[in-house]
């Protein structure tokens, strides 16, 4: 099977689906890049992370739309276009920029279908690059998905690898609800096997990344490879884990988590977000309510601290949950 980066896998999905469905448009800042200006190339970037590369030359500027720096209008335009029958894919660039467009996301797109009594869909996909690890400081390193997971009407997708990213993106593009698609910046270059053709991965179905007996580990995005590292390190001590990647946090595959906890009795949740009202605490709370009788030990939450993301390399390294911290949490949950 071809080996592709997560960046290219998402790019694949966009190319395939835009060719298939003429109602899909892409819009955002520098999604092609090079509009206006003096005399450089018209497609100068293909998205600041290169994810929308090649779309402008292929589909033209009525479908691949460079915008000014105007996030509320980008998301709003995506919403309006969706109401008017298109299938927009809006790039917000950094997830940290949700703040300048949140109303459109959570009060508009998320609520249209409900407020209007089911009389419309809002098939818009919003792409957000998230996560720490590149020393980009407090305003370019956040995860933001916990906030968005809380919003009824939104679907929230958080792939951890190239294969899933492509399949989940195609599902998003064929669905009829607004989807927030979170792409971890540190995963963009990570490669994996990805078929060339189109395929879909359903939302609300977790992936069982590792199977084991002693502990259930739930992890998202970049925390999945980190958890794999931790789990592999523990194998030599005979500790084995289920590693569950929910892949979407809304809908959330609660059953897979609960079934695993039934077997293991022990739960570690790993989440790069800040701890409060996080997906980590959401899962812990859900298990405390629905899987309490399976639990043999306190739930262990491995998250970023309740601090903004610091700039200095050494501080950011301490901020992001590490394989070492995950390993320690698994060992701790085994002791209780």
């Amino acid at each position, binding site marked *: 099977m071809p080996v592709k980066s997560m960046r290219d896998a998402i790019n694949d999905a966009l190319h395939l689906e835009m060719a298939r469905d003429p109602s899909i448009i892409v819009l955002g800042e520098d999604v092609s890049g090079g509009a206006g200006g003096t005399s450089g190339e018209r497609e100068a970037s293909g998205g600041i992370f290169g994810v929308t590369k090649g779309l402008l030359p292929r589909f033209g500027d009525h479908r691949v739309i460079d915008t000014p720096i105007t996030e509320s209008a980008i998301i709003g335009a995506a919403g309006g276009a*969706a109401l008017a029958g298109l299938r927009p894919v809006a790039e917000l660039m950094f997830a940290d920029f949700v703040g300048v467009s949140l109303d459109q996301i959570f009060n508009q797109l998320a609520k249209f279908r*409900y407020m209007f*009594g089911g009389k419309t869909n809002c098939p818009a996909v919003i792409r957000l690059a998230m996560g720490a690890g590149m020393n980009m400081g407090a305003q370019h390193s956040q995860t933001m998905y916990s906030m968005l997971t809380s919003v009824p009407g939104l679907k929230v997708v958080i792939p951890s690898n190239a294969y899933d990213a492509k399949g989940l993106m195609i599902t998003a593009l064929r669905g009829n609800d607004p989807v927030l698609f979170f792409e971890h910046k540190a995963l963009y270059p990570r490669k994996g096997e990805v078929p060339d053709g189109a395929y879909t991965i359903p939302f609300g179905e977790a992936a069982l990344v590792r199977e084991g007996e002693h502990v259930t580990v739930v992890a998202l995005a970049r925390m999945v490879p980190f958890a794999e590292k931790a789990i592999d390190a523990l194998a030599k001590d005979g500790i084995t884990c289920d590693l569950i990647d929910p892949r979407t946090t809304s809908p959330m595959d609660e059953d897979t988590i609960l079934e695993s906890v039934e077997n293991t009795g022990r739960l570690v949740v790993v989440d790069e977000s800040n701890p409060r009202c996080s997906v980590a605490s959401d899962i812990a709370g859900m298990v405390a309510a629905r899987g309490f009788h399976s639990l043999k030990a306190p739930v262990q939450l491995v998250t970023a601290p309740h601090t903004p993301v610091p700039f200095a390399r050494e501080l950011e390294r301490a901020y992001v949950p590490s394989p070492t911290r995950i390993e320690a949490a698994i060992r701790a949950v085994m002791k209780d």
Partner: protein
Amino acid sequence: MATPPIHPTTLAPLTHEQLLRAYRQMKTIREFEERLHVEIQTGEIPGFTHLYSGQEAVAVGVCELLSDADYIVSTHRGHGHCIAKGCDVVGMMKEIYGRHDGLCKGKGGSMHIADFDKGMLGANGIVGGGQPLAVGAAIACRNRGNGTVSIAFGGDGSSNQGTVFEAMNLAVVLKVPALFVWENNGYGEHTGADYSVGSRDIAGRCRGFGMPAEVCDGSDFFAVFETMGRMVARARAGEGPAAIEARITRFFGHFEGDPQLYRAKDETKRLRESMDCLKIFRARVTAEGWLEAGELDAIDSEVLALIDRAVAEARASSPPAEADLYADVYAEY
């Protein structure tokens, strides 16, 4: 139909039928709102409601230029836009009463009425929420290449919101057929437009964004129709966005229950005399001999009957079933 077109405006011939419809629409909005003002006292209508009385010529002057294939996006003060765009009046009344068979099944209410078959993309509880949406719909219009347009209604207050400025700039950049209709009724809630709009010139500010913008008398259907007509024609021809600022007034408070201390005691009374679009329209069309008083009177009675029926049906209808609480959050989940 058989009557030859009448040319009250320099722009577009209005048929006899159109004139009658324009009057009927304005009258329907007026009676809808005046009746709501009364019914709200009964306590049977949930929530809070912003009435459009006084501004009818704007909604109707604009929407008479549109077909169902054109889009509009509305505001918290949306009843007039809905009716002008062709939404079912009984369905609207039921929605405002929170009934299961309301236009949005009772889940939206006064501030969230939409009707997609009519190109009515929704009222909006967020000031400045609609304008970016209108630009998105305008992208769809442009991409279809069928000469349709997308209209964003907004108030003077909303004209200060960042989302609105972004929408205007984006529309200019993309040269899409988005049109901004500013209903300057002098107030955003309790604050005067002369205070909140720093430049004191909404149209001028739109021009600063690189689009043509004209001011017109919002109490004169013909002025709105003609001014907006020029803007719509340009947009349909691919010449990009434009704006009008309609100077108008609202006859009621910001919302029902507003004591209006920010207004002079007799202000609305005076305005009902000098700026009533229905009176102005009637005077003009009868003076010009385009319509007979009797034709207008007949419409008056029909409209009253319609509103009576709407209220009666709304009152008689039932609320949504509790299970409906969970329905339609997603298309599939």
